[in-house]
Structures are given as C-alpha cells and as structure tokens.
C-alpha cells in the first residue's frame, strides 16, 4: 500500500464536493499559466479567467450541503460560501477592467491573471478556516501573491517601492501572527477554533491567553491596515496598478474582515472583553488618523487609500460591541463596501489613463460638464463612502452606529459620527472639483466596455441597496446568527 492509500484507509476520503469552487479556481489558474506560456493572446487570457471565475461562482450559490472536511481543517458553511461568492464577484470585475489599463500603460504581463487567481484562492481558504493553520496558509498564499502583484510595474519606481514596503511590513505582520498563534497553541494545545473557545474562558484569562489574543489582533490589524499598523497601505496602494489596488482594497480587505470576525467569534467567544477593547481602540485610531490625513491629500488615489484605512475603522468598530447586531453590521458593511470601494478605485483606473497617470485632484476639474454620467457615478461613490442616504453607505454606518449604541459604547459611536463629518471634507472636495470648477479641456473620457459596465453596475447597486437594503441586511443577519449559533459546536 502506498502512503496515500494508507492515509485514505485510515482517515477516509475528504469531501471534495464542497471544494468545487476552489478546485475550479485552481484549475483555471493553471490553465491561464499554461496559456500565458504558449500564446500572447491577451483577450484569450482575460476570457478564460473570467469564465473560470464565473464557473466557480455558480457552486457557491447553489451548494446545498456544507461540510467540515479535510479532517477538520476546512469548513464550508453559509458564511464562507457567501464571502466566497462576493470575493469571486469582485475579482471578476477587477479582471475585466485590467486589460485596457495595462495596454494603455504598455506594460502588459500575463502573470497578473494567475497571480490574482492564486491570491483569490488564498482568500477563499481564509474565509473557510475553522483552524488557525488553515487561516495562516490562506493568508500567506493571498499576501505573497499580492506582494508580487503590487510590484509588477518593474520600470516604475513607486510600484517597486510600495511592493517592497508591503513585503517587509507584511512579512513583519506574518511573523507577528505566527507568534500569536504559537502563544495560543502553547496555552490551549490546539489550533482548532472550537477547542480554543472551550479552553480560553473569561475565568481563566492569564498572561498567555491575553498576550496571544493581543498579538494575533495586532497581526490581523496589520492585514486590515488598521492604525497604527497601516504604514504599508498608502505606499502600496499608490504604487500598485490601480485595478490591483482595487483588488487589494476590496477583495483582500473583505476576506480579512470575514476571517477576523470568524476568529473572534468562534475562537475567543468567552474572552470577548479582551478583543472588544482592542478593536475599539484600533477602530478609533483608524477612523481619526485615516480621515485627518486624507484631508491633506491632493492625490486622489492616495486619498482613497487613507479613506480605506478610515473604512477599516468604521467596519472594525462593530467588533467593539459583542452582539449579534454588531456582527450583522460588520458583515453588511463589508459586503456593501465592495460596491463603493470597487467603484471608486476602478473609476480612478479609468480616469488616470487620460491624465498621464497623475491622479491629481485637478484632473477632476469640471468633469461633470465633460462626462456627466461618469461624474454622476463618482458622485454616488463619494456620497456612499461619506454615508449620505439614499446610498448604501448610510446604512452601513447606521448599522454600526446602532449596534454601538445598543451596547452603550457611546464614545466610539461619537467618534464614528464626528469622523464621518470630517470625511465630508475630502469626499465632497472631489464632488466640488467635478461640479463647480470649469473643465480644463473639452475632451471626453473614453471608457472600455468593461469599465463602463463595472462603473454602472456598482453605481446602480449602491443606489438600489440604499433604497432596498433589506436583502443584504437579511443575509447579514442570517450569517451573524449562524456564526453565533456555531460557538463551541
């Protein structure tokens, strides 16, 4: 008997049926890898990637039975399937806008596509982790692929610099995470969330447990670009090709928020007073720092990078309140952030082509007179990030705000509102430049079909969800109650 047969005989065959999305992504990545070696047909690569993503999205929607498979190392439940679907969706939009951007920049590399797919695979593993080791594997696969993606502009100094910083600081983060995992393993003797949850309770919080949790939080905060562990964010976001920035700011962020929620709720449910305070402090720091620095940015891409730090603050603030309403708010905000985040960054990727890649706020002057529809889209994204009804950003913030107030965490709720008001300073600045200044040229902004479709899709969804948030709200509520019900399974 071979080794493999022995394993199968001893442990049984893992349930591969629930892994179909991951398998499709992996196979697509390899196919793209081979195609890229053999041919330089750029359209073909894009199409194959898009088809692979589309095929992978189907089973995430119609899978009927989840499972805890791979000998307890991999969980497929509604929570992970929902996030997988949205990760695949956002990756799909990044993929369809990538080619025109790269061709305009004359730096086309086929490697982008399979690296994106590998990174996506890592994120899918993250959201499916019932175990610190699976989580660690996933986050490493995702991060390392993104380090490469961020630095793909080999001739561009900014890109190289950003990627390098990201690599160093991300590496530090990984080190911190592994240290936290080690401490928790030392304290509990297990990597498994359920075992950890049953071992660490509020009665027996000792230095080992608290330090383990705190260090793990630091590592996760770094991946979520939360202040004071955010230093890589502005440089890496600015240096990376803009569609890749969108991928980093949306897909990577969302998967990190999902995994943070799962680890906190499933692994440390009885030590919530430790992580409550921790996330509250990090969230407050992110909101304050992100918003104030964004005020001074003239580069819109960098401004949006700081705004994404501030948004990490808004989303993570929900973790300050250990209640079902707060988890619902976190899931809801993460899901809807996809639409405004992708919209904002992909808008930039379409705009900067026309303006010598400068991303300066002056490029936005009088855009409303030249391309009224495009300006309207950006207006919707900015209003949504700012949180003005009837855009969906309002409901995201409202959910977090109500959750905080219901748990009597007034100070953080006040910080959230005050910082939202501060953020008006820079979001509305873009709107003012677009609508109240005279255009510098009369030229129309040319969009590729993929870009136009993506922007329209995102803007319409931001509005529809703002008028009819019920479906997403219900999904978030179901996921959060499932998560809570799964404690100590």
């Amino acid at each position, binding site marked *: 008997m071979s080794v493999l047969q022995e394993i199968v005989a001893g442990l049984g065959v893992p349930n591969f049926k629930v892994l179909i999305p991951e398998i499709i992504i992996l196979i697509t990545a390899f196919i793209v890898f081979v195609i890229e070696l053999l041919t330089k047909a750029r359209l073909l690569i894009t199409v194959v990637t898009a088809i692979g993503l589309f095929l992978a999205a189907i089973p995430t929607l119609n899978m009927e039975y989840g499972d805890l498979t791979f000998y307890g190392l991999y969980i497929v439940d509604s929570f992970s399937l929902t996030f997988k679907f949205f990760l695949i969706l956002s990756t799909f939009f990044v993929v369809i806008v990538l080619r025109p951007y790269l061709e305009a920049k004359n730096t086309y590399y086929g490697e982008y596509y399979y690296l994106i797919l590998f990174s996506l695979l890592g994120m899918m593993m993250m959201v499916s982790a019932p175990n610190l080791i699976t989580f660690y594997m996933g986050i490493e696969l995702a991060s390392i692929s993104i380090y490469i993606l961020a630095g793909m502009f080999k001739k561009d100094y900014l890109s190289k610099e950003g990627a390098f910083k990201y690599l160093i600081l991300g590496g*530090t983060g990984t080190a911190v995470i592994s240290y936290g995992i080690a401490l928790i393993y030392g304290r509990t003797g297990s990597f498994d969330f359920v075992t950890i949850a049953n071992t660490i309770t509020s009665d027996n919080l000792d230095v080992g447990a608290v*330090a383990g949790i705190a*260090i793990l939080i630091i590592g996760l905060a770094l991946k979520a670009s939360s202040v004071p562990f955010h*230093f890589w964010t502005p440089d890496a976001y600015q240096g990376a090709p803009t569609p890749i920035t969108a991928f980093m700011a949306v897909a990577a962020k969302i998967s990190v928020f999902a995994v943070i929620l799962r680890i906190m709720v499933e692994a440390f449910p009885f030590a919530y007073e430790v992580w409550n305070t921790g996330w509250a402090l990090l969230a407050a720091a992110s909101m304050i720092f992100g918003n104030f*620095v964004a005020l001074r940015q003239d580069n819109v891409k960098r401004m949006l990078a700081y705004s994404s730090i501030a948004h990490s603050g808004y989303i993570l603030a929900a973790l300050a309140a250990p209640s079902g309403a707060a988890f619902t708010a976190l899931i809801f905000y993460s899901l809807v952030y996809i639409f405004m985040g992708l919209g904002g960054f992909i808008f930039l990727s379409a705009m900067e082509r026309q303006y010598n890649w400068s991303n300066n706020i002056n490029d936005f002057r009088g855009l409303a007179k030249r391309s009224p529809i495009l300006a309207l889209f950006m207006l919707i994204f900015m209003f949504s990030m700012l949180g003005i009804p009837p855009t969906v950003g309002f409901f995201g913030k409202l959910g977090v705000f109500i959750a905080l107030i219901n748990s009597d965490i007034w100070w953080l709720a006040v910080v959230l509102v005050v910082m939202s008001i501060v953020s008006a300073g820079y979001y509305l600045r873009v709107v003012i430049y677009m609508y109240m200044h005279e255009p510098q040229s009369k030229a129309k902004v040319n969009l590729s079909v993929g870009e136009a479709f993506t922007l329209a899709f995102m803007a319409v969804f931001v509005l529809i969800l703002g008028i009819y948030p019920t479906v997403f709200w219900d999904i978030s509520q179901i996921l959060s109650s499932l998560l809570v019900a799964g404690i100590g399974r």
Partner: protein
Amino acid sequence: MEYLWIIPFSPLIAFIIIGLFGYKFLKEPLSGIVAVVAVAISAVASVIGFIQIATEGGYYNLKLYTWMPLGDYEISVSILWDPLSALMTCVVTVISTFIFIFATGYMKGEPSYPRFFAYLSLFVFMMLMLTLSDNLIQLFFGWEGVGLASYLLIGFYHHKNSAADAAFESFITNRVGDWLFLTGAILAFVTFGTMDYLDIFNKLPEASYWVITAIALLLFGGAVGKSAQIGLHIWLPNAMEGPTPVSALIHAATMVAAGVYMVARLMPIFAASDIALDVVLFVGVASAFIAATMGLVQNDIKRIIAYSTMSQLGYMFAAEGLGLFGEGMFHLASHAVFKALLFLAAGSVLIGIHHILNVQKMGQLRKYMPITAATFLIGALALAGIPPFAGFFSKDPIIEGAYEISKLAWFFLWAGALLTAFYIFRLYFLAFENGDRLDPHVKEHVHESPPSMTVPLVVLASGAVVLGFFKEFFGNFLKPSLNPEYMSFLSEETKRLVEDGLSRAHHVHMAEDAWHFLLHSLTSPLGILSLITALLGIFVAWVIYQLKKVDAKEIAKTFRPLYLLLYNRWYFDFVYYAIFVYGYYRFSKILWFIGDKIIIDGIVDGSAKVSLLTGSGLRLFQSGRIGGYVAQMALGILIFLGIFLLFM
C-alpha cells in the same frame, strides 16, 4: 389585493423612463403619452381596488418591504387599503389622468415638454406613497416628495424670476409646516414606539391626554402648511406661477388636500383630544372666511380660484373639526372634481387669449369658447353650492352641521358661502359675459381649445353634475374608516375614546340620501337660507358686473379701507415680510457681526488650522522610510500590548 403595488409604481416607472429617455428618444408627443398611459394604469388599478373594497368590505394591509430596522420597529414600505385611502387614491389617479390628458394639449410646443411630464409623474408617485402609506414615515416621505415636486413645478418656468421666487417661497413656507409635522411624528414614535397608524390607534388609551394633544397639534401644523391654511397660506396664490395643469392638479385637487386627508387618516388621534379638534375647526373656519374675502377683489384669474381653493380647504378642515369626517372627505372628493374643472377651464381660456391673466381685460369669451364657458359655469355653480351640482351636496351639510354644533363657526361658514358665490360669479361674468374689453389683436385669434383639452373639461363637468347624487354611497362607503362603530381595526378601548371625542357631532341628523337631503334643504328654514344666500351672491355679482347697475369702482371708493385691506390680502404678506424677511435679515446681520465675525470665525479658522495642521503633522509619520515604519510599528505593538498586559 397584491396588484395594488401597481398603483404607486406605474407613475414611478413613467418618471424613470421619461427622466432617462425623455429628451433623447421620446420627445414631444411620446413622453406625454407614456405619462398618460402610466397614470391611467394606476387609475384603472385603483378603481378596481375601490370596487373590490366597496363590495367585500374590510381593509388590507400589504407590507411591500422593510426599508430599515429602527430598534424594535421596522420601517416598511406598505399599502393600507381601506375605504378612506381607496377614495383618496381614486380621486388622485382619476383626476390626474384627465389633467395629464389636458396637459398634453396645454403644453404643446413647450421646449421642456418631457421634463414637465417627468415631474408630473414624480408628483403622482409621491402623492400615492402618501395616500397609501400605513405609517408616519412613509407618509412623511410622500409629504416631502410632493413638496419637492410642487417646488419643481411651480418653478417650471425657472427663467422667470417671479416663478423662481414663488417656488422658493412655497418651499420655505412648507418647510415650517413640515418641521412641525416631523416633530409630531418623532413625538408619536417616542410615545408609542411605533409609526404604524393602526398600532398607534390602539395604543392611544395608554397615552396621556396632553401628549396626544401635542402630537395632534404638531401634525396639524404640517397640514396647515401643506393645505395653505391661515398662517402658512401665503405661498398658495403665488404658486399659480406654475403651468395651469399643475395648478389644477397639485394646487387645487390633490396635494393641498393632503392635509385634510392626513387629519382624516389619523382621525382617532385628533378625536382623542377635543382641544385639537377645536383648533382644526377654528383654523378651518378662519381660513374659509378670510380666504373668501381675499378672493373678492383679486384680478388675476388663477389667483381668484387659488383663494377659493384655500377657502374650500377651510370648509373641509371645519367639517373635520366639527367631527363630520365623512362629510369633509366627501367635500374633498367633489371639490377635487369641480376645482380641477375650474382650473382647467381657466387654462383653456389662457391658451385661447395668449396668457392674459387679468380678468378686467377679458370679456365675452363665451362667444368664442362655448364649451369652456359652459363647463366653467357648471364648475362655478358647483362651487357656489347650487343644487343639483356636487358642491351643494358636499358643502351644505358642513354648513348645516355647524349650526347644530357651534353657532360662531356656522356664521362665518355661512358668510363665506355668500362671498364664494359672489367672487366666482364675478369671475364668470367678467371673463365670459358682458363687457367687450378684449384686446382686438387677441380677439382675432381666440378660438375654442382642441379636443385633448375640451374632452377632460366635459368629463369633469359631468362629474360635477352627477357626483352629488352619490352622497349616500360615499357616506356608507367611508364608514369603516371614519365611523368608530364600524372601524374594525380599532380595539374596544380606542373605539370608546374616539366615540367620546366625536360625540359633539352626535346630535347632527342629516338625510344621508341625496334626494331626501335635497328635499330637506328646500323645506327647512336653514336649507332655504343657505340656498338663498348662494343665489344672493350670484345675483349681486350679476347686478354689478353684468347689468352694471352699480359701479364696482364706486363701491371700492366708498369702502376704501376695507377694499385696501382685502386687496392687500389682510396685509399678511407685508407683516411676514417685515418680520421674517426684513427682521430676519436685520437679526442675522447683528448675529453675523457678533457671532460670526468674532466668535465663529475665530473657532472655525482656528479649528481648520488645527485640523489641517494635525493632518500635516500626522503626515510626517508617513516619512517613506521603511526603517521608520518598522520602528513606529514596533512602538505601536509595544503600546498596544502594554495596554493589554498592564491594564486588563
């Protein structure tokens, strides 16, 4: 009853289609047709729903979807379909249909044709959200929405300064009312923990009398603004700057009646507080009388009808204040028909004589526009309350009912009826009959309007003739919504509370059947008195303006102070200007000097500097040097861990 969702959303779809494609693809006739078809669909749907509820009884509460959870309460978009909302919805959709058809003719050749129909469709959608709502938030949404549509349509000719100013004035005046309404809605939510009408009604016995009074009065404040009652009425006459179909639809038939509808809708809240009912009564009576006096001396054809609208809305509020909610709503329906008719006829005149608004410059128009003149006459007779037209059956019960309840209210309502008959026939004689004052150049081109305009006129005129005979049907139909004995959605306790509140109307006994009522009016002294009053008003107008036995100018000279008082609209506008515009300006200037210059500028400049400085200060940390980053991160880790390990 699920098909009811079509009613509000059909005009919304029309609004979206015309808004997106109006200028590029649909252009002139097609965007009007889209709007007409959409509103006709909702009219058909609401009539079907009306028939269904009339035959089956009961009420339907459809929750379309939950918009937003607010603690334990979920704000939903929903439809409450009971006789009251069914009647109001039918009035809105059916009248809108005819006015839309009229507008396709009236707006012919207008460059902003698609924009007009987009706004009109938006208005109908918002109005239907208002009438169909089952909770205060959706009501408020519709309330603000119709305000917005009204603003856009008054200022439709926005290049004209007067139109832009009038739009602005109406918006601001309405803001005052809306603010009161919102305060009332929030107070209701705080008191009852819910916004749904039915839940509020059934929780009424738990709340204290004074809280209910406060809620009712605040909500009524909103109605005063929206329905242009005395105090917040100044915007309505100026709103006539909008195109005439708008005046007919929004500022006569539907939107201004929203306040009346709201009070009827929330009848249990008002009935639970006799102070609130008294306030409604006397604000209504005062508006009915004062607006009628203002209408006596105006010369602008549309403004005369506008004052008449304000006066008739006063009658409706008076009816509600008297506890005669059914009569109030019936007057609303019949008024919607004959007032829309009067406005559309005025619009037809304006098209014929090229937008000369001054009635002193018209005359003998009946020769050129026979259909318009005849239909206008029918509308005028209905307004004056001459049997057998609709106004008689809907207005006289209010006046006669008032006699039984409050003699003071009766006196002013009765005097108002005299003035009403006078001013509307003054208008009729000046415009359509004797006196050849028409400019000869204009006269050459005067002709009857096209069928798209006259057909709606004829239909509405037939409505004004026959509607009155359905008095009994409407009375019985509305009982499940407005008569506590039949209101199935009220709990026993609330029923008792409401019945106590409405006891003031218990000794009013009027024939429900139209024929008996007619017979009764022609035999009882009170009925004969009001009939004679109306005829007297017409007679005086005939003597002065048709026979010219008495010179109107002489009368004005003899009673000069009174004439000036009326002509200047009781000086409301002047006082408001002095207090709110000029006074506010002075006050702001003083505040600006003390507060702004010295205190706020200091703080704002200071805080702006601080936040900008903080920004650039914080930016220093982002030095770009990787060693610095790692060092700062290490520091962050130390502090963060320190907090945990030392303080927890």
